[in-house]
Each structure stands twice: as structure tokens, then as C-alpha cells.
């Protein structure tokens, strides 16, 4: 091995110099939903726990989250106030981090922020935890969503779906719902399938949700109707799709 090679290997060996073998961060709560009137103030706190194998310093960063376009374009820091942006936390220790969210008099619908807790150290790999704060300005909500489209597809185990939710309102929604699968002309209910709550569909946007719908062994060759019912914030959107199952179990939409 020549001299240059040895030198290179030494450096490569030091490319990443972590200061930890084990690192972790715990932030509670992970999601904050605030409901308040214009001009009101919400006082909250985060609990951040250090599960690194040594003391750490965390930094707090703020970024704009999904916000209704009818709101003034203001810096997040103008309404979301943290007294400090750095905290030292002992090994296995935790800190309480207070903040205030001021709901400005001209805010409408939903306003949100992303709060980032990152570990301030010189190591090459760092951890950050990003948690949202969603403000819903009560009295100004417009809840307006629908099912934009439904696509069915064949999978190894059966039939899956891609559901696209269109949220035209000014607040984010987290939907649940169900799919009712009927035989042709809705003569007989074959199956009811639960649609679980997952991530939100933000205001003035679309989002796709993909999941399984029915197993291969559960549905025979024939024509069917699937009725999708989606609920959020006390409202329901309904859309149906007709489809055919071939003798090979493939789905064909009509």
C-alpha cells in the first residue's frame, strides 16, 4: 500500500465522527390542536426529554405550516412566541418549554406552524423532531371537502383503492369513513370496510390515500358498486364507483 493510500484511508476512517452511539429525543405533545377566537391567546408547553447517552443542547426552529390563503402573510414568529430558542438538557433529563400562540384579529380558518426541536452539537448525524401546531379560528371555519376521485386496482391479495380527497375549505380535516361494496344495482351488501384516520388533508389542497379494499377470496366474478363515505368535522362526502371483477380476480372499473 503506498503512502498516499494510507493517508486516504485514515481520513476516510474519520469521515463521520459521531459524538454518540445512542441518541434519542422525545417531544410531547406530538400534535397540538388549538381552537380559539380572534384576538385570544393560547398558552401551551412542550416537554422535551433527552434520551441521548450524554447531555445535549436543543435548538427550537419555527416554520410556516399549512395555512389558509385568506390569512395575512405574516412571519410565524409574530404569532407563535417562545421565550428561548435553546435549552440544555441533562442525560435522561427533560425540560418544559412554554410558548404562547396569539390568534390575531385578522386570522381566519386555519393557521399552522411547524416547530422543530433539533440537537445542537458537532456530530455528523443529528436528530430533529418536527411537530405541528394547528390553530383553528373559531367562528371563521368553512368546512368544505369532497371525494375528488376513486381509483381501484388489483393487488396480490385482492383489490385496493386510491382515494383522493379535495379540501376546498379553510381548515384541515382528518377523515374516517367506510366503503360499502354492493352487488350490481346495490341489491345486496357484500362488505363494509373501515377507512381509518391517518394524516390530514390540508385546506385548499388534495391528498391521496391508498389502502386495501377487499380480499380476492371475498369477491367473485361479477359487477359491483363501491360506495365511499368519508366523514370529518361533522360532515360527510359520498362518491361511488362501479367496477367489474374478472374470473382471474382482476378489477376493471366501468
Amino acid at each position, binding site marked *: 500500500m503506498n503512502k498516499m493510500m494510507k493517508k486516504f484511508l485514515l481520513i*476516510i476512517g474519520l469521515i463521520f*465522527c459521531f459524538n454518540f452511539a445512542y441518541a434519542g429525543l422525545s417531544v410531547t405533545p406530538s400534535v397540538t390542536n388549538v381552537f380559539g377566537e380572534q384576538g385570544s391567546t393560547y398558552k401551551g408547553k412542550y416537554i422535551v426529554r433527552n434520551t441521548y447517552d450524554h447531555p445535549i443542547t436543543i435548538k427550537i426552529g419555527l416554520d410556516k405550516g399549512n395555512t389558509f390563503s385568506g390569512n395575512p402573510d405574516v412571519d410565524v414568529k409574530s404569532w407563535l412566541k417562545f421565550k428561548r430558542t435553546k435549552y440544555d438538557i441533562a442525560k435522561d433529563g427533560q425540560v418544559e418549554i412554554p410558548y404562547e400562540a396569539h390568534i390575531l384579529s385578522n386570522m381566519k380558518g386555519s393557521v399552522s406552524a411547524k416547530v422543530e426541536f433539533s440537537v445542537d452539537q458537532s456530530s455528523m448525524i443529528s436528530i430533529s423532531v418536527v411537530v405541528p401546531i394547528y390553530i383553528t379560528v373559531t367562528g371563521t371555519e368553512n368546512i368544505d371537502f369532497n371525494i375528488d376521485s376513486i381509483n381501484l386496482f388489483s393487488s396480490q391479495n*385482492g383489490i385496493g383503492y386510491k382515494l383522493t380527497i379535495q379540501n376546498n375549505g379553510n381548515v384541515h380535516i382528518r377523515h374516517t369513513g367506510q366503503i360499502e361494496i354492493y352487488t350490481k344495482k346495490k341489491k345486496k351488501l357484500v362488505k363494509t370496510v373501515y377507512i381509518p384516520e391517518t394524516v390530514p388533508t390540508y385546506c385548499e389542497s388534495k391528498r391521496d390515500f391508498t389502502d386495501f379494499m377487499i380480499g380476492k377470496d371475498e369477491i367473485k366474478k361479477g359487477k359491483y358498486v363501491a360506495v365511499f363515505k368519508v366523514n370529518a368535522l361533522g360532515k360527510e362526502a359520498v362518491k361511488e364507483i362501479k367496477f367489474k371483477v374478472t374470473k382471474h380476480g382482476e378489477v376493471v372499473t366501468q
Partner: protein
Amino acid sequence: MRLKSYLIITLLCVFTLLFATEFIFAGNIGRTVYGVYTETYNGVGLYDDSAGNDKVTFYSDTWNIEANYTIDKFEGIKSLQVSSSTYVCFVFFNGAQNMSAYEGGKIYFSLKCPIEISTDSAGIKIEDTSGAKEIKFNSSLIKRVNSTETGIDNNGTWHTYYIELSNFVNLGLDLNNITCPLILTNTTIGNDNFYLIDNVYWTKASSATRAFNVTVKNISDNEECDDITWAQSAYRKSWIAAEQYIELDLDQESTNWTVNIYLNNSSSTRNGLYCVDSDGSEIVLPMAWRVRPDLLSSEKFTLLIGENDDGGLYDIGKNPTGTDWYTWVPIKEINNETIQEYDYVTVWNLRGIHTVVKYHDSYDTLANYYERKPKIYFAADCSNAIGGLTYNASVVTELVYE
């Protein structure tokens, strides 16, 4: 009748201890979220038998109980379908377990319960070495999530419930000597009907730490370590994997999270290891990542990386359908707003771990499914490496909630 039921349970306990030899469930006791039957939470999940089939170790007087794939579930890809039964037990521990860490915590479960089930007679039990303690379906101690309603609703739709474990303790349950973490009793239904149960887990008290943990380990021995290094053979070679990986562990109850990985090298051009040469010019060694579930002992995989003409990176000898099955992902420099063809930052979310990109952009549910903490591996294109220089990179592992 009651005496008969207890007799059957006792006999089944004996049967279980005699014939059930492998239990992985107890190994997860102590986590903030202890999964009894769930696919949502890492580090918990279903029993993996020797044939590679997944099963949950449940016991019932009817034995007419099955994991219900793809059909109707509350979470993951399957629920547990149970026909009429005197009792259904989820996991008999191979010896009593100390679950006192969950004092002040809760047991959660999601249930789709038909009207035929009598909420007066059906019950939920947790068993210790002195016997089972029961709370009836119609008890106000059973709380419904996101609702002020109490008790099990037998209206045939999914609901999620929880019970404060202190309620069982008040009935005499000894958390230091738990033998079965959930039993459903007297769920009598018609012959052709069934109920579904899903997402059963215990949680610690709300004051307990819900953590996102990252550990650096050697590939060779899985021991914790401090540095990531490349082998001597990396010099002037193209894509070479590092000798270490980082292990992810998310121990908390949530369904709206994503783990991302990216570089923050404070420059749009530093999409890898970078250094500044003596003449001020910048040298960048592109980096890539891939994620795998924790491997079963019988599984092997190599970290030999091939590069296709279009830049796609794949596992040499493991490409199942052709050279477009790319498992390695170029790492994104967060300051570079240009979206590259295979530019992904998402490593892991509720859908699973991000396994393959390009035409087969897909997620593997295995990491959420078994006790398999995802591992992120790194590679660098060392073909332009020059000796005598110090290379740096700032890799961010980010947990994002929505």
C-alpha cells in the same frame, strides 16, 4: 357454566405451557407501547413462526379464529376475526411477566362488534397468576376514543376503546405477575357471524417517555459504536457501503408520523461527503442511503452496489426484475431545491419502510409488523476520492408529525 369456563381456561393454560414453546411478545415488555396484536407500532407485532408465516399466538375454545388479511381492519393489513366463543386469549406468557412498568397506563383495542354479542355478559379480562380480572362490555370503565360514550358499542362498526389499567388493579390484578394481557369472554354470536378485533396494545402512563431513538452500530457485530467508516477497499472505487448503520426506534402511539433523512451541508451542491481542497476547490463524494428491516437470523443480504446507466443504484445479485429495481437512494441535500429523479427523503412511515424507488416506488410493511427496527445504511461514490483531505457531511434524521 361459569365453573366450566374457568375449567376450560385452566386446561388451556396447561396445554399452552406444554406445547407453546416460542414467545417473542414478552421481549417487548418495557417499551412505552407494548403491542399485543397490532401492525402500527415498531418493535411489537405478530408472532413469526418457523415457516415464515405470521401468526398471533391466541387461544380459543373454538379455535375458529384467524388473521383476516386485507379485508376489514382497523389498522395495518389485517384484523383478527373471531367466531362465537366462550373466550379468546391473546398471548399466554411462558411464565408470569412483570408488567408493573405499565402502572398508571392503559390498554387500547379496536373492536367491530355485532349486535348479537350481549354487552351484559361479554367481558374483557386480564389475567395474573391468581386468575383473571374482568370488566364487562357494558361497563362505564371502558372509554371510547374521541367520544364521551362508554362501554362497547355493538352496532357493527369499528370503535377504539381504552381501559385504565388501574381499574383492573382495583379488582385485584397484580401487574407484577401477568400471565395473559387480554382475554375476551362470552362473545357468543350466531354460527355464520364473527367479530373483528385489531390494534391491541398496552401503554405506559402518560408521563412516560415517548421516544425517537437512533443508534449507530457496526454491521459486523451489531455492537454500538461511535463512528461510521469505510473499508480500505473503498479507495478509488465507485459505490461502497459504509461499515456501520443507524438503527431507528420509534416507541410511542401515533399514526401520523414520517421519518426523513437528508443532508444539511449548507450548500446546494454538497450532496454527499464534501471537502475543500488546498486550492479552494470543492470535492464532493455523492452519498446514498437504503433502509432495511432488522433481519431474521436466517436472512442474509449483501451491500454490493451496482449502478445502472441511468444512475439507479441496486443490489448486485439481488435485482429481482431487472436493473430498474433500485434499492439505494441518492441522499438529498436539503438546500438543493432541484428534485432529482430518485430523490426521496422518506425512510419510514405508517406504510412501512421505503424499500424500492423509481417504477416500483413502494413500502415494505415488515418494519412495522415484527420486532424489526429499521436500519439505514450509507454508501458513498469514492471514485473521485483524493487522499489527505478531510471529508464532512451533516446527516439529519428527522421525525415529522402531521
